[in-house]
Each structure stands twice: as structure tokens, then as C-alpha cells.
């Protein structure tokens, strides 16, 4: 008797899962808004006067791959941001001089992000680049050492872009306010104007690297070709076609599964921070995400309101009007782009989730956060619907 009910159940499930042939106008508009074609031109970065300077971008590329820009000559940005791996490293947590607490972020389109890192503790690409260079577990060097290195190795290239390097006579070989005790003491002992000169060289290295990173962009995917066809009122064919399952996944993504509320726009991110109840990793220091990140970016001497910005303070709106406290920041992390995500597991800020199937399972369960409040609500998705969502994410990675 019970066995006979199974077909009825399946029919019921099929009923709720039925899909109309045509997209509604609202669905079409949302689909068009997700296409790379909807991306506006990259805005200028007036805080970095060499942001769009070709020589600076070329110098930045050199620096990005330069292992000597580290304490022991083994770590470059490219160690964790691999060119042929979407500028990330496929690890749950990145390894430089030692293992860090977070997963490396892919870099395509990163120049459009108002805040950098999972917790947004930097507010420009050039300020961001200075973080790993001095982090003890990443490059582990000091700004004074980098100034000496550039003077010895890249003086001409640097000076053609930024003008003369300061006189480094008397500047210690290794000194930084963020270094070891000895390196901090060496920094403290330097006169203020020297500190300022070294900080300027350091910021300039960041500005060159940022100019390079501005050239890292997303490539159009099968989804983009599909979306452009839908927007143009044409039938998507050939390399623009999506399977029935993929279309169903897209419908769920922009509809009942609510994914598009946060993963929106052509980069599939709202550039904001959300608590989605991703569990902390055992044994790591407590990670409150944006709650700590907001304080850090306000205190950062290299932030937009600091002394090393080019151009006017007008450009600092994101920092001036940012939410700096409140419950909503607790364990909130930056919404990652979903472009290419299917091809680069694991997922989440510390690689907590191994596969896309597990990610979808997380959204279905919507577990409570260990602190603060998860914004997620549990979803009802059948196995077929889960598979469709995953299939759709695949169209963003080919």
C-alpha cells in the first residue's frame, strides 16, 4: 500500500517543481543584470595616481611574481594567487611562510570591490597589497627591507613611475611597526620624516601592484552568452544554450532559493558582508569577520582618509559612510563572487565546506550562527532542485 503512494508523492513533487517555458519580464531583467555585459566600465581610482598607468601595471606584475619580496625569498603574491587557478590556491587555508587562518580569494574583478579581504579590513587595492607583504605567515618582510630591495634591484623602474627614491642611508635593513620586537624597535628609532618616506615607498609598491590587479577581469561564460541572448529576445543556441536542468537551477537561484539577494549583479556579489552561519574552524582564533574588520580599516594608516592617498577626500565615501558597529557585523563575511566557483573548491572564508553539494546543503539547513545572527532562512529543496542549482553554478565556470 505504502509503495503505491510513492508515485503520488513524486507527482506532487513534480507539480511544485514545474517550470513555465518562458521567463517573466522580471526574471529576464534579473538575468540580464547578472551578465558580464551589464558591468559598467571600471571606475577610475583617484586615490592611486598610477592606477591606469601601463608602466606601473607592468611593474606591479613583476612585483606580484617576485619571491624576493619576502623574508626568506620564497613567497610571492603568486604563491597563493596562482594565475592559472583563478588567482587562488585551491586550499582551505593559504600557506605562505606558515599556514594562515583564511582561504585565498580569487582576484578577477577585484578592482571593483569597495572593501578587500573576507572581513573588509582594507579599503583599496593598494592598501590591501601592503598587508600580506608584512604578515608573518605570508611574505613576512618589512617595509624598510622592501625599500632597500627596490633601491638595489628596481631603482630605474620605480623612479620612472614614482620619481626619486628617498635616501636610504641610515635606514635599518629590517624595520616595520608591524614586525618582530627588534624590527618594531628599529622602526620606532627612525625619525618621523624617514618613516614617512619609507611608508611612501611602501604605499607606492602597493599602487603598482594595484595597477596590475586592475587588469585581472572575468571572462564571459556560457551563462553570459545565454543571458545576452535572453536579454536580446533571441533563443540561446549552441555555446549559449543552457540545459533544462541548468535553466531550472537559474530559476531557483533568482527565485525561490533567494541566492540572488546577496549574489547579485554581474559579479554575483553585493560587495557587502553577511552572517550566513558558516561554522568556525576548531582550533583557530575566534573570527568575528566584519566586526573586527570594520575597526581595522578605520585604524589603518593606509586607508583612504590617511596620508598616502592621492587625489581628494571625495573618493573616500565608502569609508566615511561605512557601518562600523552593530550586531549585523558579527561574523559577517564578504559575499564572494560565484563566477568560476564551481571550478575552485573548497568554499567559504576558511575553506570550511568541501563541495558545492555541501554548500547547497548548508543553505538548505541554514544553521544558526555561533554568535550574531545568520541571515539565512531554511530552504525546502528536493534532490532534483539541489542538483539543478549546482548545475547552474557550473555554467558560471566554463
Amino acid at each position: 500500500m505504502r509503495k503505491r503512494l510513492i508515485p503520488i508523492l513524486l507527482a506532487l513533487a513534480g507539480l511544485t517543481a514545474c517550470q513555465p517555458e518562458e521567463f517573466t519580464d522580471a526574471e529576464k531583467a534579473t538575468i540580464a543584470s547578472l551578465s558580464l555585459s551589464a558591468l559598467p566600465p571600471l571606475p577610475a581610482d583617484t586615490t592611486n595616481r598610477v592606477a591606469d598607468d601601463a608602466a606601473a601595471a607592468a611593474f606591479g606584475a613583476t612585483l606580484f611574481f617576485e619571491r624576493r619580496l619576502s623574508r626568506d625569498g620564497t613567497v610571492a603574491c603568486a604563491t597563493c594567487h596562482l594565475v592559472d587557478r583563478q588567482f587562488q590556491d585551491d586550499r582551505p587555508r593559504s600557506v605562505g611562510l606558515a599556514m594562515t587562518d583564511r582561504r585565498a580569494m580569487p582576484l578577477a574583478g577585484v578592482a571593483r570591490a569597495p572593501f578587500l579581504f573576507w572581513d573588509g579590513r582594507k579599503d583599496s587595492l593598494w592598501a590591501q597589497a601592503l598587508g600580506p607583504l608584512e604578515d608573518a605567515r605570508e611574505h613576512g618582510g618589512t617595509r624598510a627591507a622592501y625599500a632597500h630591495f627596490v633601491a638595489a634591484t628596481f631603482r630605474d623602474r620605480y623612479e620612472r613611475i614614482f620619481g626619486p627614491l628617498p635616501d636610504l642611508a641610515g635606514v635599518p635593513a629590517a624595520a616595520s611597526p608591524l614586525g618582530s620586537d627588534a624590527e618594531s624597535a628599529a622602526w620606532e628609532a627612525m625619525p618621523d620624516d624617514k618613516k614617512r618616506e619609507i611608508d611612501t615607498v611602501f604605499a607606492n609598491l602597493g599602487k603598482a601592484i594595484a595597477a596590475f590587479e586592475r587588469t585581472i577581469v572575468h571572462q564571459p561564460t556560457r551563462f553570459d552568452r545565454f543571458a545576452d541572448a535572453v536579454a536580446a529576445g533571441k533563443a540561446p543556441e549552441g555555446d549559449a544554450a543552457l540545459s533544462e536542468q541548468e535553466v531550472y537551477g537559474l530559476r531557483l537561484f533568482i527565485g525561490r532559493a533567494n541566492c540572488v539577494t546577496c549574489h547579485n549583479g554581474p559579479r554575483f556579489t553585493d560587495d557587502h558582508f553577511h552572517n550566513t552561519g558558516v561554522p568556525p574552524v576548531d582550533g583557530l582564533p575566534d573570527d568575528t569577520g566584519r566586526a573586527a574588520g570594520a575597526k581595522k580599516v578605520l585604524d589603518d594608516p593606509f586607508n583612504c582618509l590617511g596620508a598616502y592617498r592621492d587625489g581628494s577626500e571625495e573618493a573616500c565615501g565608502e569609508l566615511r559612510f561605512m557601518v562600523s558597529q552593530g550586531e549585523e557585523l558579527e561574523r559577517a563575511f564578504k559575499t564572494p563572487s560565484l563566477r568560476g566557483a564551481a571550478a575552485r573548491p573548497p568554499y567559504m572564508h576558511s575553506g570550511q565546506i568541501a563541495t558545492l553539494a555541501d554548500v547547497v546543503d548548508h543553505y538548505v539547513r541554514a544553521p544558526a550562527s555561533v554568535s550574531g545572527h545568520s541571515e539565512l532562512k531554511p530552504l525546502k529543496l528536493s534532490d532534483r532542485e539541489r542538483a539543478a542549482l549546482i548545475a547552474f553554478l557550473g555554467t558560471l565556470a566554463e
Partner: protein
Amino acid sequence: MNRRSILIALAAAALLAAAAFMAVRVMMTPPDGLDLARSKASARGLYAVTIAPEKEPLEQGPLHSWILTLKTPDGAPVEGATIAVGGGMPQHGHGLPTQPQATAYLGDGRYRIEGVRFNMSGWWEFTFDIKAAAGDDRVVFNLAL
């Protein structure tokens, strides 16, 4: 369980599922008949308030500014007001993604509200707490993005 009770249970489950489905659907779109007026009297009627984005059309994503025009009910511009800006998405239970501020008085009752961003589509509330000579009052606008 006999056949009948199983069927009843099934029907109940299907109803529940349908209700859950509807609930999620409904949550996404602004409620029907939402008052989208951009000119309103404040709650206690002390002020007539008009808001407009500095640039139309209103876009989801970028940081932008609004102009708030503050008048008395009989149309005289209100100067020297302190305006606190707030809001959020009632259906998602979260606030604004930024902390907008009234940064300049432009004359003729007009105030610039800087640092506004809407990071999602849907129903947003945009709230202004106004302190001026006539007293404290509040006005809430609805926006549908």
C-alpha cells in the same frame, strides 16, 4: 497507519510545503499597494518632506546621494535641522548596508544625504529622524528596487 490517515497526512504535508513555498515567494517582492510616495508629511505632521536621488534612475550597487527637502506644512523651508538617516529591508530583517549622513545644507530647505547604497533589490525603508525648531519628528519612505 491506515490508508486514509496516510492520505490525510500527505495532503497536510503538501499544503504545508505549498505554504512554505508561497511564504518564500512573497518575502522576495515588495507587498502589493506599498506607498511609494517620495513626498510625505512626517508622522506627527510637523514637516512636509520630499526626497529624491541626486541621479535617476535609482541604481542598485553604487554609493550615491539624495536630496531631502524639508518644509513646514504651509511650505516654508526649514533651516538648521539635524537629520539622522536609517532604514533597512523589513522582509530580510537587516538595516542599511551603509551609514548615510546629512552632510550639507544646500539652501531652500534642501539637505544633501550622502553615502546611500542599496545592495539588494526589493523593499527598502528609508527613515529620517528630524530635529528642528518645530520639534522632533520622523518620516519613513518606502522604496522598491
